[in-house]
């Protein structure tokens, strides 16, 4: 019995150790493609505000929006497209009007060395290629559809992933031959390379950010950082474009 109590107490204290004692927590929901960028922004913000513990929750923007609508206590939402942001705004969850803070472009991604000799978008229609795309309701997937329609290419993917990073990892692991992701997703990835999409076919992804209702003051300061010159520099280093 005593062992049980001791184990129970240990479990509780370990669980409690996940949050830094005494710190205010700032919960940020960010699109999966913002993994690198917001990781760097978190470091910068916490250096400026040592009393705040920034927690970044990364997933496909459509999942984040759904979670916010279900009542998730997010304080900041950074989406990869306007569609998912509109869902959140329409539900009255936003405190103010969203601001576009970054842009992104699409690129065809293949394993390093391009073993299957993919030359461009048109090759994605090849029957001998396993192509993985983001699902249509994911921002990256919606942008991909737009680009493929514009190029007149019909692709039969072998899987429809629920966020763009999963597409990257399928290619990086060698499970698929090609995919379509954001140019920023290539930064720091040694296992994959990009094949350019011509400008006239490409889309510009607009990333809006907003502070949500019931957010603390740290949320406003975080968004200020994102929109500041310093924040723009961090975003550019992570492969995004800034307005």
């Amino acid at each position: 019995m005593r062992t049980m109590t001791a184990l129970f107490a240990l479990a509780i204290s370990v669980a409690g150790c996940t949050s830094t004692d005494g710190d205010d927590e700032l919960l940020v929901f960010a699109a999966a493609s913002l993994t690198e960028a917001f990781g760097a922004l978190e470091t910068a913000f916490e250096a400026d505000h040592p009393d705040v513990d920034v927690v970044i929750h990364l997933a496909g923007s459509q999942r984040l929006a759904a979670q916010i609508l279900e009542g998730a206590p997010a304080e900041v939402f950074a989406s990869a497209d306007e569609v998912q942001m509109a869902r959140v705004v329409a539900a009255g969850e936003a405190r103010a009007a969203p601001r576009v803070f970054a842009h992104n472009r699409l690129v065809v991604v293949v394993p390093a060395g391009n073993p299957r000799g993919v030359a461009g978008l048109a090759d994605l229609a090849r029957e001998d290629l396993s192509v993985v795309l983001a699902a249509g309701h994911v921002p990256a997937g919606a942008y991909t559809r737009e680009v493929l329609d514009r190029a007149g290419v019909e692709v039969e993917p072998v899987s429809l992933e629920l966020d763009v990073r999963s597409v990257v990892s399928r290619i990086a692991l060698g499970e698929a031959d090609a995919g379509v992701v954001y140019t920023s997703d290539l930064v720091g990835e040694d296992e994959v390379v990009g094949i350019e999409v011509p400008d006239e076919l490409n889309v510009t992804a607009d990333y809006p950010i907003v502070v949500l209702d019931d957010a603390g003051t740290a949320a406003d300061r975080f968004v200020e950082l994102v929109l500041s010159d310093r924040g723009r520099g961090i975003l550019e280093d992570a492969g995004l474009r800034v307005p």
Partner: protein
Amino acid sequence: MSASTSSPTPRGIGLLALVAVVLLALPLLGLALRAPWSRLPDLVGDPQVAAAVRLSVGTSLAALLLAAVLGIPLAWVLARRSFPGRRLVRAVAVLPMVLPPVVGGVALLLAFGRRGIVGGALADATGVSLPFSTVGVVLAQAFVAMPFLVVTTEAGLRSMDRRLEDVAATLGAGRWAVLTRVTLPVIAPSLAAGLALTWARALGEFGATITFAGNLPGRTRTMPLSVYVLLETDPEAAYLLSLVLLAVSIAVLLGLRGSLLERTGSDEAPR
């Protein structure tokens, strides 16, 4: 007339038991109450939902067949033969049951993926790629569900009266005849319970499927994967589909009445 009285209950046990029931029942109640029943006809007619149901039923039954063809012989060997390393074999056979499903999916990729130890050779030799295929779904489901069948069948084989087999043998029955006409019928109740549990586990499989087989409507997007996707686009449809899976689970439990599960939890008042 015999009077049976309950044991005196240690203080607090009753309250904790009540909390346990509430904890388990509330989510099920929440599902039943929040599901938009009025949309059920639309959902049933939706082609993607229909595809997911057909896919789930087909793959889970195929996985069950695979689990039975491979798992019952394994259970027989574990129960009836002694050999060096038997404990290790049993541990390997049971491991997928306790392994986190997504870890199972990763492991399947490393074995049967295009760069996997077997998958690479398979792809080079035959061009067959298991990930992103319906066969991959069946493999993932069989991987996580087979241990259930192995464990329940081995238990049944160990607890049956061996003399029945001996008598059949002395009466001239060959080994296959003993197996099919004596052993299997005798363990039929625990075998049936094992098959039902195995099928339910295969039907509900998610983590290994989405990791190994991918996510494509009609080919690999089973019902649990559909629920996960629908949560992002149409939560009410997700609730309804969840209810359907809940109903199937209840049906499986009802089917297991009077068998393995009930033997461990008797409905009789304690004496």
